[in-house]
């Protein structure tokens, strides 16, 4: 198909597609062009080509960070997770890697950790100076901070400082690593009422170095869940931040 070209050598189809992509047409002209776009794939392809060419003009507009409430509103507008989906996987996807674990808060948490008395039993003295390189603030669904953790992948040292949000719960909190490829890895039962220190074994410390988030599930006393799947509800989670 050939398009008529006017006296100025203007390819009418192509230039109309450009005007539509640029959105300079009057409302009536635009409505007519949209109708053609819907009915004529060749014209629609021209519009798409113009969009591709012109979008670079947006490079001149400075980025503006959206307010923090925009994402939760977007998320609230998404359809519910399909019921036939693997529930556990869908669940991890839903909460994982929210960016609520602000670095500033995490840094503050490290200060808090350092300021708190070290309880039972002290970890063996590390061979190298302790370098805390991962921190996370775990928050409950209501946004309250449940625990802060700091982890040094070099030595396997893990420091946990719960707030009093979990105090009084008769269930036993268990700490989990959320792996970047999906799935979770059990670290173990933790003390939800007082600061504690742990040293992760070699296998686990490698995983902890790769994990991008941590989570806490509440398990029935005396019950140990499988290493890759909590049985109790996950009540808190937080993104691991690098220092």
């Amino acid at each position, binding site marked *: 198909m050939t398009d008529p070209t006017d006296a100025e050598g203007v390819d009418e189809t192509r230039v109309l597609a450009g005007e539509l992509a640029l*959105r300079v047409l*009057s409302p009536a002209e635009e409505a007519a062009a949209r109708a053609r776009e819907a009915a004529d794939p060749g014209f629609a392809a021209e519009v798409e080509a113009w*969009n591709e060419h012109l*979008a670079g003009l947006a490079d001149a507009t*400075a*980025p503006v960070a959206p307010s923090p409430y925009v994402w939760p509103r977007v998320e609230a507008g*998404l359809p519910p997770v399909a019921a036939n989906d693997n529930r556990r996987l869908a669940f991890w996807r839903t909460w994982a890697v929210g*960016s609520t674990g602000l670095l500033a808060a995490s840094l503050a948490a490290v200060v808090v950790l350092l300021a708190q008395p070290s309880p039972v039993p002290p970890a063996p003295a590390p061979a190298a100076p302790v370098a805390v390189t991962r921190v996370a603030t775990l928050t409950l669904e209501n946004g309250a901070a449940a625990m802060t953790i700091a982890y040094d992948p070099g030595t396997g040292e893990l420091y946990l400082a719960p707030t009093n949000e979990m105090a009084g719960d008769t269930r036993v909190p268990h700490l989990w690593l959320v792996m970047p490829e999906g799935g979770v890895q059990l670290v173990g039962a933790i003390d939800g009422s007082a600061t504690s220190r742990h040293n992760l074994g070699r296998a686990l410390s490698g995983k902890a170095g790769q994990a991008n988030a941590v989570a806490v599930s509440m398990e029935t006393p005396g019950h140990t869940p499988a290493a890759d799947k909590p049985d109790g509800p996950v009540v808190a989670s937080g993104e691991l931040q690098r220092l």
Partner: protein
Amino acid sequence: MSSILTRDELSMALGQAGQGDRAAFRRVYDATSAKLLGVTLRILADRQLAEDVLQDTYLTVWSKAGSFDASRASPITWLVTIARNRAIDRLRSGAATRRSTPIDEAFDIADDGPSPAQALETGDDVRRLNDCLGELDDRTGGAIRTAFIEGVTYDALASRENVPLGTMKSWIRRGLMRLRACLES
């Protein structure tokens, strides 16, 4: 917090979001929401409206991500087009009123080089576009930039520049054809 993804990473995340992967969708949001808010805010000049449109934009992105075709469009182009069209629809629905900005001013703004943080688009395409726009006369190049960035019609452009509607149409139509010829040469 905004993160930088390469074009391929963004394409992949968009594709995964199209399969229903919410974590991937979040990565798309984190990497692009500041860019898209910049686009909607320039058109609507009202932060609340611009953020409302941003929210609608991402809901559209979620539902249309499955139709994104990385072999045909760049991911950021695809996103910018949705955001810009949404913002213009809102602007013209009468829900927004806005100040008018002379083309010269828009041209000055448009002439600022992009900062590294906003270099989401592969640089070559943008450089080529700017080179080709630079080959148009300043009036025409400025009018095309203003039309894109502020989302205004021929009518508004003509009254801002104080030229007859037909003159503005002729500038832009001929400018578009030259631009396209240059881009494809």
